[in-house]
């Protein structure tokens, strides 16, 4: 593989990771304060729509960004009202917000622009343009002929929109806020034991609303990035489950900012690979070996445990072995390559998250008071 190709995949990884990262940090603030947020998807979607719509109307991507942030915060406040003020179920509220955004964006887009649930194409200052850093090459031909270091600088480091840089800056900033400031201390405390915060004379409600609002801001930026930087306009359901993938990344990252960046880059990398190579080949033998090894591992684990483990993992192992057998008989020779379904690459973030949740690879322990409304008791 050429060096430039690797650089380009890296570039694409960053582009695809940024909305995940921003949404993931949004979830991090919210969940660290004890509020589960499965409404990341909806907030991003609403922000993507309004940012595109307002950018188009105003001609300024920055005003669009502000509008996106505003609507996202508004949805956050609804989530806060439901889950903090009225002590409702945080998961249900999140589900509702996702639907609300999915429905409203289409309904409003249709009645506003009459272009079939999309906004008009954005151009010029209504979009965030890539920033070419000093000394970076911007023409493809020049880049192709340049030295590897110049390629790295021009393609990977330079040439992103401002939001990408904001996204990366958000990581150390989030870390600093969480671990080095009074606000961060209190925020983490309220997610672990709100009673401790309350008896210390700090308002649990205010802290949690603040956390939820921060989540709104970050989701707003993420959404605006999708419609005004990554693409040029809003299309129906354009978030494409990124909110849920961000949620998965958050679990994978064990609710920590730096890990979140790593995870989002990893997931972004999967998508970049998937986008770039429609046809990933793998020697059939490898595939069979992987299936058999996984099945054997499961059986080995289950055999020392209860009947339930045996039934479930045993059943799963049988399925894997069946797949392996199907591959053996389905291909002419075991050394021939088989095409990996793109669906598998696309599902990898979800599968990995389940594996992490299962605790087989580093147990993810969520904030202790997560998901529970705070009720005063002695």
């Amino acid at each position, binding site marked *: 593989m050429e060096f430039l190709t690797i650089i380009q995949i890296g570039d694409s990884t960053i582009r695809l990771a940024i909305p995940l990262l921003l949404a993931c940090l949004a979830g991090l603030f919210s969940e660290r304060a004890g509020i589960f947020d499965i409404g990341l998807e909806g907030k991003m979607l609403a922000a993507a729509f309004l940012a595109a719509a307002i950018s188009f109307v105003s001609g300024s991507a920055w005003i669009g960004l502000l509008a996106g942030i505003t609507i996202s915060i508004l949805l956050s406040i609804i989530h806060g009202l439901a889950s903090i003020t*009225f002590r409702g179920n945080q998961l249900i509220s999140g589900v509702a917000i996702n639907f609300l955004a*999915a429905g409203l964006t289409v309904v409003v887009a249709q009645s506003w622009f009459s272009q079939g649930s999309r906004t008009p194409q954005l151009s010029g200052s209504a979009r965030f343009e890539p920033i070419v850093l000093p000394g970076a090459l911007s023409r493809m031909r020049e880049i192709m002929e340049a030295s590897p270091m110049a390629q790295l600088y021009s393609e990977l480091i330079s040439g992103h929109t401002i939001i990408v840089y904001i996204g990366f800056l958000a990581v150390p900033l989030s870390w600093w806020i969480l671990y080095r400031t009074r606000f961060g201390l209190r925020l983490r405390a309220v997610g672990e034991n709100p009673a401790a915060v309350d008896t210390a004379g700090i308002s649990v409600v205010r802290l949690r609303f603040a956390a939820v609002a921060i989540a709104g801001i970050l989701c707003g930026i993420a959404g605006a990035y999708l419609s005004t930087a990554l693409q040029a306009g809003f299309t129906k359901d354009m978030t494409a489950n990124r909110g849920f993938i961000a949620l998965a990344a958050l679990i994978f990252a064990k609710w920590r900012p730096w890990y979140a960046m790593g995870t989002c880059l990893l997931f972004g990398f999967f998508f970049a690979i998937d986008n770039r190579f429609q046809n990933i080949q793998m020697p059939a033998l490898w595939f069979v070996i992987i299936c058999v090894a996984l099945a054997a591992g499961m059986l080995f684990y289950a055999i020392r445990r209860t009947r339930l483990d045996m039934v479930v*993992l045993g059943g799963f192992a049988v399925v894997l072995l069946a797949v392996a057998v199907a591959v053996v008989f389905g291909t002419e020779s075991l050394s021939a390559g088989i095409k990996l379904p793109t*669906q598998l690459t696309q599902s990898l973030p979800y599968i990995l998250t389940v594996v992490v*949740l299962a605790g087989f690879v580093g147990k993810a322990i969520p904030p202790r008071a997560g998901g529970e409304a705070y009720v005063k008791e002695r």
Partner: protein
Amino acid sequence: MQKMPAWADVVLIPLISVLLASIISAIVILAIGENPWAALKLMVSGAVGSSYGWGYTLYYATNFIFTGLAVAVAFHARLFNIGGEGQAMLGGLGVALICLYIPWPHWTLALLFATASSALFGALWAAIPAYLQATRGSHIVITTIMFNFIASGLLNYLLGNQLKPSGQMEPATASFPEPAHLPTLNDIAGLFGSDLFRSTPVNVTLLIGLVACVLVWFLIWRTRLGYEIRAYGHSESAARYAGISPNRIIMITLLISGGLAGMMAINNVMGEAERLVLNAVEGAGFIGIAVALMGRNHPVGVLMAAILFGFLYQGGAELALWTSIPRELIIVIQALVIMFTGALDNLVRWPLERVFAATRSTRGAE
């Protein structure tokens, strides 16, 4: 001490919640320049104003009965099965395999085995999240969300590569053979010389749905298993004390839940499309959440809420057909119903409790 009478909890609160959701929906309709009153009239006449409308309303309601019951059963064990979507997709796969590859002599046999197969596939898809919740404590909400996406990927792959007849572009199976077609209620009405539900997809699955409601009622309130499920749902620590195995309850409850969600496929896949297509579930799994919430996890409530959502779906479709209001408006209404009946329950409950407390104290003073 009950804070308010049971009827208020079961009837009044959902009613007020739906009313609030409708008011906001009306505002949305108003905001996009349409007349909410006209829209409502159109929805009513389109959904329940004719036997055609009823046919579609009941067809949709059948889907929601299954997914609603699925969520409700799990909820009795305080397990939030948000994976109805994926389980129903897999149920569809179960139905398709049964209908495509086995030559059935008669639809009744096909229905019997397809029902079993759809329930089995749905249950199996719930098995891994259930297993992980039971033995590893992995949060069922997150795992079932992930499994929805994995199911979508799996089906996408199977339909696009394995199950698609050669030469076909669309990722879908071939049409099921004639003997695997289910009679519609119109066919049945025809036996009695009636032409009810003409050219609508509502089919015998509705009757299976009604039977499922009754069975779920017996399961939850009359059987030992139901007793154990409810006990576990109210208090895991107490269940352990009583010798009720949490692992067993989690597994069985979620298998039943997944099975119910999977059974939705006999309605939409076998009864209506008569082949398996991508996105066959169309969000019905999620609507099950709203249906269960509104129906207070009781089969009768679920049935009524399912009909209400069937009405919304059919009414929404009519609305999209005759006005410029997009079909997605029903998603907005659905979101509002979930929000008000589910997450904002206390918004209605707290003031009502105060009202009841006030009337009680004045009555006490007399």
